[in-house]
């Protein structure tokens, strides 16, 4: 029984700091239309199941899943919400297709961050109500703690992290969908204020709005409906400890485990050789570096040198966040993984325009759910079936 699963259609609307013209329903409808057109299918006739990715407090509505089916064409069909990252949603669709229950599943993720007037307060609300909130810190102190430890272990500097911001904002200039495309010098970035030392405000991805719909299909159906299925070769996801007090601050164990799971499924023995490029978490600039170490694409001793050599630039040995990452595209919160997946699909199809990489075959996509979580998911994608 061939259990392979491929991405057969993508569509998106965005990304920009605000999206006043359209409600979230309308934004998702527009993205869905494009995805279904890309896959050459009719949702009412062809799509068998649907998944939405959303959290109540991001939406300002409880039981938000109520408001998800209409704009996807999912009325009276099997639809559920995953309260997780977009990659968790995509992975859930992958599991459903592998189970044999469905052949075509559509997944939706979106951000209307501009509608949340105090997003910091919502992040604060994710902290433990008894042990952490009474301390009254700005919630992004957690990133400050983690970055501090990262700099200590890797001997990277604040300027090295600024260079990651510089790279991603520069990359965004070639991405027509990016919200924050700028040439900024390291000096300009380093002159920003510290939010939570050593984390500079300029190291934090700014929020953006947008909607993304991705269609997955079983191998048999994928080959019928598209000439360019993008194959999901491996998936992995993992949680670590929720309490701040119990977690490891010097490494991202959950990213290591998730990657291991995905590499094992996709038969990747040597990530830096077997993978051509990666779209990974950079909500805080230092996390791109820390994540690369956890993914086995660098180690603690070499990461600083690799950053300084420009290894991760589009023309470097291992392009990371060619799309601009969340720093350049905008932070779409739980929809980030969907944006990264779309980028991987466009690159692997050879239609990424000005930022197209040279003949990539295998991509790694990874995302993190943000502070204060230790929740991550990883996918390995390829344009080659075998």
């Amino acid at each position: 029984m061939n259990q392979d699963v491929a991405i057969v259609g993508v569509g998106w609307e965005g990304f920009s700091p605000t999206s006043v013209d359209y409600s979230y329903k309308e934004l998702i409808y527009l993205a869905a239309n494009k995805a279904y057109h890309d896959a050459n299918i009719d949702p009412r006739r062809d799509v068998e199941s649907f998944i939405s990715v959303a959290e109540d407090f991001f939406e300002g509505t409880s039981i938000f899943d109520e408001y998800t089916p209409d704009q996807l064409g999912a009325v009276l069909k099997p639809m559920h919400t995953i309260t997780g990252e977009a990659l968790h949603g995509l992975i859930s669709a992958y599991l459903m297709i592998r189970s044999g229950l469905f052949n075509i599943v559509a997944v939706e993720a979106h951000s209307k961050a501009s509608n949340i007037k105090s997003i910091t307060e919502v992040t604060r609300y994710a902290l433990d109500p008894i042990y952490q909130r009474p301390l009254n810190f700005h919630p992004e102190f957690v990133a400050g703690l983690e970055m501090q430890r990262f700099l200590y272990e890797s001997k990277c500097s604040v300027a090295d992290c600024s260079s990651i911001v510089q790279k991603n904002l520069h990359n965004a200039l070639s991405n027509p969908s990016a919200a924050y495309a700028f040439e900024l010098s390291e000096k300009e970035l380093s002159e920003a204020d510290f939010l939570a030392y050593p984390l500079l405000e300029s190291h934090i991805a700014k929020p953006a709005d947008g909607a993304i719909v991705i269609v997955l299909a079983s191998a048999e159906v994928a080959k019928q409906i598209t000439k360019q299925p993008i194959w999901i070769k491996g998936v992995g996801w993992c949680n670590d400890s929720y309490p701040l007090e119990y977690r490891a601050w010097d490494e991202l164990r959950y990213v290591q485990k998730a990657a291991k799971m995905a590499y094992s499924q996709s038969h990747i023995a040597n990530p830096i050789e077997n993978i051509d490029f990666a779209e990974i978490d950079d909500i805080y600039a230092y996390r791109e570096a820390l994540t690369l170490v956890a993914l086995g694409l660098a180690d603690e001793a070499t990461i600083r040198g690799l950053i300084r050599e420009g290894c991760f630039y589009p023309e470097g040995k291992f392009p990371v966040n060619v799309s601009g990452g969340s720093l350049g595209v905008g932070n779409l919160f739980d929809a980030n993984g969907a944006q990264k997946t779309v980028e991987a699909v466009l690159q692997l199809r050879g239609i990424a325009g000005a930022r197209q990489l040279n003949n990539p075959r295998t991509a790694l996509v990874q995302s993190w759910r943000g502070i204060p979580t230790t929740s991550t998911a990883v996918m390995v994608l390829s344009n080659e079936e075998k």
Partner: protein
Amino acid sequence: MGLRKVAVVGAGMTQFVRRAQETPRELVFKAVRAALDSCELSIKDIDAVCLGTAPDTFDGVHMNGEYLSDGAGAFGKPYIRSYVGGGTGVFVPIQGWYHVASGLFDLVLVVAEEKMSSYYPHAQGAFLTIFDHTTERPLKPNLLWIFALEMNRYMSTYGITKEEIAQVSVLHKRNAADHPAALLGDKNITVKDVLDSEVLAWPVQRLDVSPVSDGAVAIILASEHVARRITDKPIWIEGVGWSLDTAYWTNRDLAYPRYVEVAARMAYEMAGIKEPRKEIHIAEPYDPFDYKALHHIEGLQLADRGKAIELYLSGSARRDGNLPICPSGGLLGVGNPIAAAGLMKIAELFWQLRGEADKRQVAGSPQKGIAQAWGDLMQVGTVVIMGK
């Protein structure tokens, strides 16, 4: 098609109480511990964890699934939370089912939890935010409204009386007197008690409703070869179905839950069931309000439209009847910690089909059971069929 076989091999739950001292994470831990102990497994044996819990607003924690993760045993494991409002309790086992049926995992832990008592002054107020933020919330709607509107429509369409509907509450609460974890079991409750209770939102009266509660339930799913190693009485998940209707609930006739029918048909087809009324031996429809049990029985195709009440009037719905309904005591009797309540029905069918339901045991060696939950704005039906 050849779907992989998936079985329930263990189950456990906490008591359902009005307010527990335990934190949400402790509630989850207790249920998971009970489930693991029931089949003598350790958390190390578990390959992946699926969790369901309803609105974060009750607990007052954003990304509540993350907060609950270590209590759920998800440390170092693949972990995902699913959410379909009140339907979550019967959806999360479906989520666990597709984890195992995918072939990626052999042992999956499924947990559902609710701690509604944290919300101040009363959990009901939290439901204001389920309504459309622009077209409905300015009217300051109340959760009771939608149930009362639906109950009224149902009663009027089919000419069913309050006296008749009260029988449902009576049967379920009496059944719950035999459930060790129940909050509202009452061996002596009568129709008069229900009809004399305070009118909240006519036609809904206080004893027509299940109350806010805290609690958690956990089950363990296994692939076929692993299930047989763990127990000689695996209970198979034979059918799964779910369906979500349009958010525009004011554009639909509320007299009939068509989304429950669509979900049920999907499950019956997968289970190969052609005559549900003959082949289903126990039904656990979702009963947050007494009339809802009737509504859902009809959606499940176990009675004709408007006729579910006859199962109660004839005694067929009793534990010793032809088609026992909610032998557990349901939400009306055991309690309604939203997501946990649905999973409680799955646990009940697990125990019933193994002959381990103690004083609640349905006689005659039942072979197949159906559990169903409902949620959102009269929108989602989630259905699981289990068999020996």
